[in-house]
């Protein structure tokens, strides 16, 4: 069996950059969650700053994959992996954007008494962080099984989003003067729900990368 050195090097490079990108996105999400829970405005700013690094990593991954396609003529699993790298990197980038959205909510809820809905946001963010980590691991270990496990966590996020929506609607009816906060809660919850969807999409792409079949996870 002949190994294709240049292509193998490109894959190792891609794995490293995707793992780093995921680690940064996960860190941002957990920092945003902590910032919201502890009303730490400084931490929220850090999340915003880290976003530029994550965007830059996405471009590096795209360049690496594009050069490998142009110069190595990959086919079959090699090609599927490079295509997956493009797509998964884009999903991590979106996940990091949603971490920023969560961090931005910190200011809105400064000085607020503890609310059940904020706890739900916190739980969603924690699960989202686990999904990001699981997705990255599934990619770098080329494991469809790990991808399925990571995607399965989306059910929890969806359930919390649904429960939060019901709570916030009740809150709007009871205390119309808090409509602005209610709207922010709904929007932020919606972002975290989207984050779960992005990771699910990434996991579907990883299953295609490994098994060569298109699947819909959590349909």
């Amino acid at each position, binding site marked *: 069996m002949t*190994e294709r050195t240049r292509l193998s090097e490109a894959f190792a490079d891609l794995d490293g950059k995707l793992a780093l990108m995921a680690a940064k996105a996960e860190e941002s999400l957990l920092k945003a969650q902590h910032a919201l829970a502890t009303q730490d405005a400084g931490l929220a700013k850090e999340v915003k700053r880290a976003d530029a690094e994550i965007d830059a990593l996405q471009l590096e991954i795209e360049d690496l994959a594009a050069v490998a396609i142009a110069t190595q003529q990959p*086919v*079959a699993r090699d090609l599927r992996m490079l295509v997956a790298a493009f797509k998964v990197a884009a999903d991590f980038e979106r996940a990091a954007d949603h971490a920023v959205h969560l961090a931005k909510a910190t200011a809105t809820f400064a000085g607020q008494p503890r609310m059940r809905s904020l706890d739900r946001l916190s739980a969603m963010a924690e699960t989202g962080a686990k999904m990001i980590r699981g997705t990255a691991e599934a990619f770098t270990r080329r494991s469809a099984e790990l991808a399925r496990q990571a995607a399965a966590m989306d059910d929890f996020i969806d359930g919390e989003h649904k429960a939060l929506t019901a709570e916030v609607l009740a809150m709007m009816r009871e205390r119309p003067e808090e409509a602005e906060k209610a709207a922010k809660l709904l929007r932020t919850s919606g972002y975290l729900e989207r984050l779960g969807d992005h990771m699910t999409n990434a996991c579907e792409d990883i299953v295609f990368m490994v098994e060569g079949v298109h699947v819909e996870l959590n349909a």
Partner: protein
Amino acid sequence: MSKDSAAAWPHDRNRPTFTPAPGGGLELAPSALDVRNLTIAYADGHVGVRDLSLELRRNSVTAIIGPSGCGKSTALRAFNRMNELIPGTTTSGKVLFHGIDIYDPAVDAVQVRKRIGMVFQKPNPFPKSIYENIAWGARLNGWTGDMDELVESSLKQAALWDEVKDKLKRSAYALSGGQQQRLCIARALALTPEILLMDEPTSALDPLSTAKIEALLDGLKAKYTIIIVTHNMQQAGRVSDMTAFLLTGDLVEYAPTRQLFVTPRDERTERYISGRFG
């Protein structure tokens, strides 16, 4: 060839073998060649192709790929009985063309090669004028129509007409390699074949000539069935609708090209096409 088999042989391409369609109407059989259990052995006992079965689709380009010595050229030559020209070669199995086995003793190999033409790796024009390269073979094969028209239409189909229309009397050897290869394609088309076999037709050509021939194939498949053997996997990916992967004489995988190059089913195909073989 006996009188009976001559009548059975599908001479008129407007009168091919029809099979009843489910609705009761008539439709052309979907496969241009139906290869069944084809085994080809050389005089020294080496088996070039082992128990090959595949249906080659009409009006499409089928690529046959595989490492050197895998039997791809041997298989291609079997599709118009060219292996018979190699002493000691034995062939078993069937190659059905319009339902008739081309290896049936009653079938004339010359007739087979007229209906199933071949273009070789190296351009091999006759040492004659461009015009005569096309006219000569057609005349030998009994063409009695308007020769100028046949020459023009054949050269046009091979995308060569515009480049040579003012120098038809000049020697074919004055043409570039790429032009010579298109002349050989025109020469094959002048015999109005149904199937065109191509054995690495661009391996001796530069990228620009290669691109011209590849573009040509796409146009030709509306009228002909093309089977191309190629070493160049990117070329197989670019030009073919179906791809067959042969390895040491065995057919490993035969699938739509887009499937074979993105999600091959066999690990050996995966390794070969991604350059990890050997």
